[in-house]
């Protein structure tokens, strides 16, 4: 019975923290103010100060987490609604995303090996350019820790948003479709939110790129991981 109440409190508390951090972000829309950043910090601080073990918190937290699977499935809806974009620019879109996915996985492999990282770390780094729930699934499949994967995904997303304009300038990209492909395949959902502010086309392409990239990386990363880790 006690455990039941802990679970209910964890669910209610997480939802309250999320609602508050979402409101904060609306007032101060900076990348480091994203609900996932501030919300995570608040929950971690709360657990550390109150001394509640993470496992006890997860008796409730796991119920929220269990909605991630259906959320990934739901990505099929925006992808289907943007299918005209995929049809119209199929070759440039798929080639761009494919290149990004392959470069991301290869550089991830090279860097983790150069740093002398263990298999567990590398498994968390490899899928860092795809949306969090998919990255966590890939990392778990490869024998790594999902929270670490989520951390690296956030670094890629926030870092990507911060440097996007400079990177586009550096490689001489001015086309909104190409810009959206870079954003979606490198900085996933966090980047897509930013692209939507830049232009409608860039945002729509970024959302397509994010989902297609998740599918490509979900096929390639486990393959690369099993071969090279």
């Amino acid at each position, binding site marked *: 019975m006690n455990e039941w109440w802990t679970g209910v409190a964890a669910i209610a508390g997480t939802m309250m923290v999320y609602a508050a951090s979402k409101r904060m972000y609306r007032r101060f829309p900076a990348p480091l103010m994203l609900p996932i950043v501030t919300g995570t910090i608040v929950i971690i601080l709360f657990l550390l100060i109150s001394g509640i073990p993470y496992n006890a918190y997860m008796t409730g937290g796991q119920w929220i987490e269990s909605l991630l699977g*259906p959320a990934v499935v739901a990505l099929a809806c925006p992808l289907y609604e943007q299918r005209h974009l995929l049809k119209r620019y199929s070759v440039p879109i798929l080639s761009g995303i494919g290149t990004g996915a392959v470069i991301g996985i290869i550089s991830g492999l090279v*860097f*983790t090996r150069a740093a002398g990282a263990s298999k567990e770390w590398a498994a968390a780094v490899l899928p860092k350019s795809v949306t969090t729930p998919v990255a966590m699934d890939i990392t778990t*499949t490869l024998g790594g820790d999902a929270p670490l994967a989520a951390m*690296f995904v956030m670094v890629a997303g926030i870092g990507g948003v911060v440097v996007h304009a400079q990177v586009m300038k550096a490689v001489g990209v001015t086309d909104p479709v190409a810009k959206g492909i870079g954003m979606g395949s490198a900085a996933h959902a966090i980047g897509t939110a930013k692209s939507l502010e830049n232009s409608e086309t860039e945002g729509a392409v970024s959302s397509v790129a994010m989902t297609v990239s998740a599918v490509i990386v979900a096929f390639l990363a486990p393959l690369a991981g099993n071969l090279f880790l």
Partner: protein
Amino acid sequence: MNVFRIVIHILILYAFYWTGVWIQGVLQLPIPGSILGMLLLLAVFIFTSATPKWIQEGSGLLLGNMPLLFLPVTAGLVIHGELFSVLGAVLVTAVFISTLLVMGTGSWVSQYLLKKRREHRE
């Protein structure tokens, strides 16, 4: 009746998710079941008269509040003190550089092909 519809929509998404997980298990695939479920739903949209509108309330709610769903997982960093190490810092830097590479090459390749196609048409 809105709550009722949301629950039904999420249950439908769950059904696709579990089918994906089941296929992964049976065929011993390394691809996450969630991605297989997503592809399955996409196939249903493409090959039947079903449209995303049918599950709009449920899918919109989940997609619009994705950060809430992974807050419990990211809070798990509380038991991952190893991230705050030299190796952790090196890997964060590596992830950042890799992100630049992905962004630069992906955009560049697609712009190159877009330009080429436009020239071809003119």
